[in-house]
């Protein structure tokens, strides 16, 4: 079904992929900044709550949308089902996306725990993981645009 959708509506898939990834980037940016600066402001608990809720309510759905749209676009591409003909940039995207998903889940869980048990190291670790996700997203976005061989 994804293959049929991808073939018939590639533009919609691309819009959801780029839009989802960009919103995900924004959500992770919010989480990174709020968690890394939480201890330096008057209302640290508010920032920790915002970080967790942003990751959960904005980041997670955006990640799901951009990942499903990526599959949608891949299925419409000229590459074989076994992935043997896939270009390098697609592989870079998959590696960063899969690794990013793992880091994102850990960051989300730590941010959630930090809301209930406000310990500085939980927020900071979650914030650092968010920064790593952001670096990965920059590399993946570059790969999607420049399409290195």
């Amino acid at each position, binding site marked *: 079904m994804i293959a049929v959708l991808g073939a018939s509506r590639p533009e919609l898939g691309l819009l959801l992929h*780029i839009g989802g990834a960009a919103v995900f980037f924004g959500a992770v940016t919010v989480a990174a900044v709020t968690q890394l600066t939480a201890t330096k402001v*008057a*209302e640290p608990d508010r920032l920790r709550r915002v970080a967790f809720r942003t990751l959960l309510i904005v980041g997670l759905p955006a990640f799901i949308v951009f990942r499903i749209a990526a599959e949608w676009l891949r299925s419409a591409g000229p590459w074989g089902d076994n992935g043997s003909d896939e270009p390098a940039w697609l592989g870079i995207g998959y590696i960063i996306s899969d690794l990013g998903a793992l880091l994102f889940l850990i960051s989300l869980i730590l941010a959630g725990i930090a809301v209930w048990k406000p310990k500085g190291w939980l927020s900071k670790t979650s914030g650092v993981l968010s920064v790593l996700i952001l670096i990965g*997203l920059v590399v993946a976005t570059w*790969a999607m645009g420049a399409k290195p061989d």
Partner: protein
Amino acid sequence: MELNDWILALHLLSAVALVAAMTAFSVMIVALWRTDDPAAVTSFMRLGMVGNVLVTIGSIGTIVFGVWLAISVDTYELWDGWVIAAIILWAIAMALGRQTGEGYRATAEMAAQLVSSGSPRSPELAAAMGTSRAFWTHWLSVIVIVLILVDMIWKPGA
């Protein structure tokens, strides 16, 4: 890889930065919705600064690298309808963004003054963090940026 591949990558990165900034500002507006607590507003100052950096990179990068691509890629022209539409929409988004920035900058300054004077609550601050002019121009700019994305991807008339 050719130069145009790099320019396209930078154009895409700029677009991601712009949408990410709009997402960050939207989260701030929702998180601080009608708050009368100046300390809460000032807590988000650093996020606001990061958002400003992203929106600056995104705004300049999208137009500079976008126009560059329209000139250097053989299949596109600067006077293509979808390119002109994108440039007009970009200008509208910038004008709306400037108004939003001015509105919320004044609110942030008000919050900082309230904090320094020791005022715990302010009804004026709550009004400014609600359905103010800056609130509406923000959401209008979000709609315009979504329209730019749609135009860039569908390329009507290309």
